[in-house]
């Protein structure tokens, strides 16, 4: 679990840096990318019922847990709300849920097929 987290957290940091360097709304995009990718991978790990017992702690709880974040998403969403920037506020919520939930569903479907 700790080994997965030791990889997931710095990977998130690097994705965030990459997104900030590339896009104006970088921090939001970085958070979105890690959350959607992490949800997809966790879906696979959780849906894969015949997986070895170390897969879920390492890849799911450790790696995906540290790669994805709720606290930063909540903070970034709150800042839009505080500034009354309704469109980015709604878009941030809609994209996080609209891509994150299908990602976990798709991962799960893929995992159960393994």
């Amino acid at each position, binding site marked *: 679990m700790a080994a997965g*987290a030791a*990889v997931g957290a*710095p990977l998130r*940091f690097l994705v965030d840096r990459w997104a900030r360097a590339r896009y104006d709304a970088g921090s939001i995009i970085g958070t979105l990318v890690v959350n959607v990718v992490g949800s997809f991978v966790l879906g696979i790990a959780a849906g894969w019922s015949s997986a070895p017992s170390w897969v879920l702690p390492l890849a799911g709880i450790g790696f995906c*847990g540290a790669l994805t974040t709720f*606290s*930063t998403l909540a903070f970034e969403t709150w800042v839009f709300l505080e500034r009354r920037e309704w469109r980015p506020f709604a878009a941030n919520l809609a994209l996080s849920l609209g891509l994150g939930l299908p990602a976990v569903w798709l991962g*799960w479907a893929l995992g159960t097929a393994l």
Partner: protein
Amino acid sequence: MTRGLVGVVAAGGVLGSLGRYAVGLALPHASGQWPWGTFLVNVTGSLAMGLLMAWVLTRIDPHPWLRPFLGVGVLGGWTTFSSFALDVHALSGSGRSGLALGYMLASFVVGLVAVAIGLALGQRAFGDRPRPAL
């Protein structure tokens, strides 16, 4: 500097994740039940993020490792979006669509309120912050 910083973020992520893992062990939830463990880490992590940002944004010259270590590492490891998404998936998959929707809404509403409370408490403790930069 990048290699040291990446190591610091990894260490923070391990710390936060171990804490989240412990909460998960202490608050197990049966399928179809409200996922208290994930809910608790996400809400407390959002509160802590508000406090952290109020503090960091009022520092004149914060150490460049401070925010990545605490924000991306510790709080990123402590909170999770993937487990939240899996919880919603599992609840709706077990026929508890209403509970899934309630959990989804409550996580965001309570999470955003927690950020606001953290920022307000932080402002009291550390003074006015500049406009938050994302």
